[in-house]
């Protein structure tokens, strides 16, 4: 496999590619030689039981966990490796940062910066990483607050707003980086049930109108069915089954998928 240089501008065939990626925590294999490809603008939903490793896929892509084996390619560029003298070697932090700029992530527990107001949370990345001026970053942030329906929360601190509002600020913060790939890690799991709807509405809207590639880990099956182009059922570090949402939810082929869906849908 040959890496492409960072300046490649044309759209690659795959926006995200995992090639035999292995991640272990001690003896526990979380990703077992995972192969996964995500097309540009594709909305991929990953489902599976807790502890199956689905969040780790996102965390590896966000460089929050470094895999022990395999290659991760984002927008045509190796994420963890770089080519030197015709050989792939471990990439330096600078290379990783440059490739990582294509990716942004929304976390289960929001992870907003509590000492900054909502708008400062959103403008921090564009100002410090993308080099926008204060006014440019603010303009971009205000537009995003409008999109996620939070114009009245702009100057509030995270402690002063609800969980649903916090998560929408977190979505705005990730979007402000204008990433090519957005990762959503169980973004409604930490919310009170009555606040889930407002966040899912924002995500559905986003999925419909954006050209961004989205990888979404969720337990909200109906939402997954609505917005996904493709659903991947993941368990014990491997892809059990994948397919179009309607097909996978209504007629799963694998026994493991059937059991999982039965358990989750019964609970709903």
């Amino acid at each position: 496999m040959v890496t492409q240089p960072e300046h490649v501008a044309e759209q690659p065939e795959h926006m995200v590619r995992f090639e035999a990626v292995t991640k272990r925590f001690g003896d526990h294999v979380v990703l077992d030689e995972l192969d996964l490809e995500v097309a540009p603008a594709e909305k991929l939903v990953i489902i599976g039981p807790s502890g199956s490793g689905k969040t780790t896929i996102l965390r590896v892509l966000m460089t929050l966990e470094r895999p022990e084996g395999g290659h991760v390619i984002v927008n045509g560029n190796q994420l963890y490796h770089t080519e030197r003298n015709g050989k792939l070697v471990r990439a330096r932090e600078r290379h990783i940062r440059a490739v990582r700029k294509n990716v942004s992530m929304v976390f289960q527990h929001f992870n907003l910066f509590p000492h900054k107001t909502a708008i400062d949370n959103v403008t921090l990345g564009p100002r410090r990483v993308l080099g926008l001026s204060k006014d440019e970053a603010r303009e971009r942030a205000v537009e995003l607050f409008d999109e996620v329906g939070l114009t009245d929360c702009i100057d509030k601190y995270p402690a002063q707003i609800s969980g649903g509002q916090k998560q929408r600020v977190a979505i705005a913060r990730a979007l402000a980086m204008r990433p090519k790939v957005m990762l959503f890690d169980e973004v409604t799991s930490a919310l009170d049930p009555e606040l889930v709807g407002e966040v899912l509405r924002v995500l559905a809207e986003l999925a419909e109108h954006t050209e961004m590639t989205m990888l979404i880990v969720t337990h909200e099956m109906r939402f997954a069915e609505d917005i996904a182009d493709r659903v991947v059922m993941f368990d014990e570090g491997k892809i059990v089954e994948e397919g179009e949402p309607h097909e996978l939810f209504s007629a799963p082929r694998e026994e493991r998928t059937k059991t999982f869906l039965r358990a989750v849908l019964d609970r709903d």
Partner: protein
Amino acid sequence: MSPVVGSPVLAQGRGTWDWEFAWEILPDLLRGMWVTVQIAVLGMGIALVLGLVLAIARRSRVHVIRWPVGFVIEFIRSTPLLVQLYFLFIVLPQSFDIVLPAFTLAVAGLGVHYACYTSESYRAGIESVERGQWEAATALSLSKADTWRTVVLPQAVPRVIPALGNYVVASLKDAPIASAITVGTVLGVADYIQSRTFRSMEVYTLAGVLFLAVSIPAAIGVRYLERRLGNPT
């Protein structure tokens, strides 16, 4: 340091309080107190900055930085300030030909000594910042410097202000030790006057009162800072 008062003639009426004598020695004690405050303030200035550098260095992924820093911190925390000051004052000139003014050595000694304590406070503050905050910084692709400057330290430092404040007050009380290396701190001045006059009551009582006069406002100032910076919302 050259206190001029304290003539043996005044060494009369031992055991009773002599207001005239107290009044006479006050300017010298005040000068000594001023030197003491300078040592404490400059020393803590070093300690607050160096402590932060040490705390960050101790978290380095590079062993050759992390291990020596950890060793130096533990070594200095395990030895008395007085021994460290003697080392700077006696060993440096004798063995390394490094001769520095005693005042400079006192400031440096106190600064490095307290830096090792403040670094531990900073470390506790840094460790109290949730992992999710670091991860959010990574997800925004912030550089390491920006992550520290805009995300981690603004959360970590306010949380350790009470501990740092206690060190500020403690350093003020430790600063007189510098009289052991000939710096004219309030204690040095007091000892000198006492040795000349053989009167101790006024000398050490006044020295104590001067300390109170400085350390109580310092403690109040620290509490004020805690309230101002402790809660950003």
